[in-house]
């Protein structure tokens, strides 16, 4: 168990640096270089790039160490005094951390590089661009430096989180990420929409922060209970068999439920933190709205950092989760995960925003991972977490490229083929008069939505690099057999569910996988195939230099979206299994065994494999069939014409699904439900408290105290004026009067003084002589 290696390789000591490199970049950007956008971007990339090199060097070193899972590396120093003991502040490297170190800094680095293109760093600043709103196509974002500072801090949060060797430190980095998600989702804080129902980035940031806060609070409660029970928050201490045994056997009596082991309560509370962070039902509502952030942020949140943190937390604390074998904690995790996987997949089917589809897909895939953990598939969940990060980052970055392509196309379409030089500017000033410039000055967006897939179509020819990589990502997401990474990880989860007899979970996940393949096919068909449905799609292109920055990371990620799965091919798999040693399972499984988690490789079974083949291919096929012919409604738009409104596009599912489609499109009305249940009441309570505050506290107590104070002062004023001042003035007046009286004898003439002297002497002499002695 968790014993420190006698002489760990020296390179492990560098692990401390990994989170602090991006942190340094953050500090440098914020303090010194924020005026220079190119330098800021360079610093952020340099910070994460160095972190990536160290991370990979460490991870690769660990691959070569036999039985590394039993002897992980730990480096720590005393930090917080707690009575007689100390909280150690420390970092640990074990196989799980090594796996994360392969994924997190690398994906972050690619996203950072992509951001250079996305934020158009190096391009001239737009004349009409305002801080806190997206820049016009082809112009650098006015706050690009700030953006790079934030994402560097975000990377710090995630890297610190995976390295932390205790829950306190983990929580600190966890909250850094919470802060960064708020800052980045609301990055375009000045953006407003014409449609009042559409959530603004500012509100979305707040929503993400507050929603995750619910989970964080429960998680903190779990941590405190854990500390109260075990007097430690260090993973190495908690995961000792004795400690876990004590936690599982010591019970507490809860109302209604009865005697419950502490382990169950703590595990469920900590899992709530993961529910919030990984956007699981019922705290999933923040994640789709988090799409209001710039697209690289969506990729960061959805792939490399934020939501992975929730899954990572559960994987990391898995010994605690399973302390009570087949206990309610695991059942709860499995239920929430499986339910969310299916539930979010159904919503994704009816979304039209290219990023919202991916957002629900992320929720669904995270549900997959939790379901896997709930049924004890520790290695499979870790595997899916890592492969998913690659292809989901790829998909998000691809969608960002599509959005930029559409914006360029929109720009071109509006201004004719003359490009976006000075001449076209002149041109539109003539046609629109002063109208356009005021339009650009305000932060109102034009009605055209470059993220709406209904506005797209036929982008494959316009943006081939984006399209091909996006399709690779889509196939990986839907689990296209054999070649893609998603297939291997998803198949492993399904196999685990089947072999361990969790039929309900198995069926739910299979249905979710079918829907995943379906909506992926729908998304690809609507975006890249068919005829362009608008002028923007007609003119979309990826020729601008910024697309070089954007498409290169896409290609690298596409390679990983395929090859990433090859490290986890089961040995028992027909034909291919013979070539594979399944190093991933061996590596992570080593840790699992050290932690007493059952993770032996499963014998091969045809049922889950067949299921996963059928659902992946069937879903893709179904999506292709349904959306192959999708186009604007007949009668409204002539063949080859572009649509004037996205509503003219008729979704082929809308009619057969009827009311259900509307429900799905509105996300089961969860936002409305929460609004009615919680937000309205919270606002009502706040209003009541406000009235209480202003009526009772302000008007009565504070104002009353003020009134009394004022009256007292008035009395004091009167005393001052009539008594103290009168005495002072009186003294002055007497002095003045006396001075006036004696002033007359000072004439300045020496003879007068002599006379006075003579008279005085005479009088005194007379008195001396005449008065009786």
């Amino acid at each position, binding site marked *: 168990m968790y014993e420190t290696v006698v002489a760990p390789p020296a390179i492990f000591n560098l692990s401390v640096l990994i989170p602090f490199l991006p942190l340094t970049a953050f500090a440098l950007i914020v303090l010194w270089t924020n005026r220079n956008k190119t330098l800021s971007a360079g610093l952020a990339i340099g910070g994460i790039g160095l972190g990536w090199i160290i991370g990979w060097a460490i991870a690769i070193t660990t691959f070569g160490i036999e039985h590394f899972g039993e002897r992980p590396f730990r480096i720590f120093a005393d930090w917080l005094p707690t009575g007689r003991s100390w909280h150690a502040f420390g970092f640990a490297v074990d196989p799980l951390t090594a796996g994360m170190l392969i994924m997190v800094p690398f994906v972050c680095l690619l996203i950072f590089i992509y951001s250079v293109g996305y934020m158009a760093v190096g391009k001239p600043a737009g004349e009409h661009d305002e801080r806190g709103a997206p820049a016009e196509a082809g112009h650098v974002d006015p706050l690009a430096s700030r953006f790079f500072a934030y994402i560097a801090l975000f990377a710090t949060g995630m890297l610190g989180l995976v390295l932390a060797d205790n829950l306190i430190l983990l929580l600190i980095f966890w909250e850094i990420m919470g802060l960064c998600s708020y800052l980045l989702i609301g990055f375009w804080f000045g953006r407003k929409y014409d449609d009042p129902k559409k959530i603004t980035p500012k509100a979305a940031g707040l929503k993400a922060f507050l929603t995750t806060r619910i989970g964080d609070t429960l998680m903190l409660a779990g941590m405190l209970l854990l500390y109260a029970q075990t007097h430690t928050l260090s993973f190495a201490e908690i995961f000792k068999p004795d400690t876990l045994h004590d936690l599982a056997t010591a019970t507490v009596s809860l109302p209604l439920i009865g005697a419950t082991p502490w382990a169950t309560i703590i595990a469920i509370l900590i899992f709530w933190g993961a529910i919030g962070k990984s956007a699981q039902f019922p705290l999933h509502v923040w994640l789709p709205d988090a799409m209001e952030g710039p697209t690289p942020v969506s990729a960061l949140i959805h792939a490399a950092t934020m939501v992975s943190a929730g899954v990572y937390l559960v994987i990391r604390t898995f010994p605690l989760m399973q302390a009570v074998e087949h206990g309610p904690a695991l059942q709860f995790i499995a239920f929430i995960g499986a339910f969310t996987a299916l539930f979010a997949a159904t919503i994704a089917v009816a979304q039209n925003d290219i990023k919202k589809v991916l957002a629900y897909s992320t929720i669904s895939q995270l549900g997959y991972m939790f379901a896997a953990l709930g049924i004890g598939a520790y290695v499979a969940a870790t595997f899916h977490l890592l492969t998913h990060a690659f292809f989901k980052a790829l998909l998000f970055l691809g969608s960002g490229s599509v959005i930029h392509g559409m914006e360029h196309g929109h720009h071109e379409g509006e201004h004719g083929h003359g490009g976006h030089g000075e001449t076209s500017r002149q041109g539109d000033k003539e046609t629109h008069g002063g109208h356009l410039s005021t339009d650009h000055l305000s932060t109102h967006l034009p009605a055209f939505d470059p993220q709406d897939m209904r506005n797209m179509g036929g982008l494959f020819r316009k943006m081939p690099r984006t399209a091909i990589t996006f399709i690779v990502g889509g196939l990986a997401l839907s689990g296209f057999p054999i070649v893609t990474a998603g297939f291997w990880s998803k198949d492993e989860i399904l196999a685990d569910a089947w072999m361990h007899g969790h039929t309900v979970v198995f069926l739910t996940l299979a249905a979710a996988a079918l829907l995943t393949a379906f909506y992926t096919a729908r998304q690809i068909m609507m975006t890249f195939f068919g005829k362009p449905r608008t002028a923007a799609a007609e003119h979309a292109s990826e020729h601008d230099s910024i697309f070089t920055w954007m498409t290169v990371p896409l290609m690298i990620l596409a390679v990983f979206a395929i090859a990433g799965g090859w490290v986890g091919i089961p040995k028992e798999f027909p034909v291919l299994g013979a070539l594979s040693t399944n190093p991933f399972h061996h590596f992570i499984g080593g840790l699992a065994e050290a932690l007493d988690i059952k993770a032996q490789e499963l014998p091969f079974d045809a049922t889950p494999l067949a299921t996963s083949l059928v659902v992946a291919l069937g879903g893709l096929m179904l999506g292709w069939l349904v959306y192959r012919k999708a186009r604007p409604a007949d009668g409204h738009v002539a063949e080859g014409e572009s649509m004037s409104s996205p509503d003219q596009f008729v979704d082929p599912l809308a009619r057969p699904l009827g009311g259900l489609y509307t429900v799905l499109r509105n996300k089961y009305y969860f936002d409305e439900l929460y609004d009615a249940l919680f937000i309205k009441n919270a606002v009502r309570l706040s209003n009541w408290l406000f009235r209480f505050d202003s009526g009772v506290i302000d008007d009565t107590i504070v104002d009353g105290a003020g009134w009394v104070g004022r009256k007292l002062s008035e009395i004091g004023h009167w005393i001052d004026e009539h008594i103290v001042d009168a005495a002072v003035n009186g003294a002055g007046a007497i002095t003045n009067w006396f001075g006036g009286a004696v*002033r007359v004898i*000072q004439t*300045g*003439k020496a*003879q007068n003084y002599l006379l006075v002297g*003579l008279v005085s002497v005479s009088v005194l002499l007379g008195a001396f002589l005449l008065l009786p002695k």
Partner: protein
Amino acid sequence: MIPLTWYLVFAAALFCIGAFGALARRNAVAVLMGVELMLNAVNINLIAFWRYTDVGQMTGQLFAVFVITVAAAEAAVGLALFIAIYRQRKTVNVEELDTMKG
């Protein structure tokens, strides 16, 4: 021998003339002369008392010589002051010399 009283009366008369001159004359030089008269009246007193009471010792004479010396110095200083005032203000009329006022 002339009685002491006569000397004293004479000295008092001389002192009064001097005091009057010092207090009533307009001309600063005349004022100074009045002052000199008063000093000499005192000198007469000193000598007279010495002669009638304490002949054995030199105190009275010495005192008178001392007063004469001081008077000479005083006259020198006073005249110097008047010359300085005259240069500045073109007058030695004490009525007009009221710079000591406030």
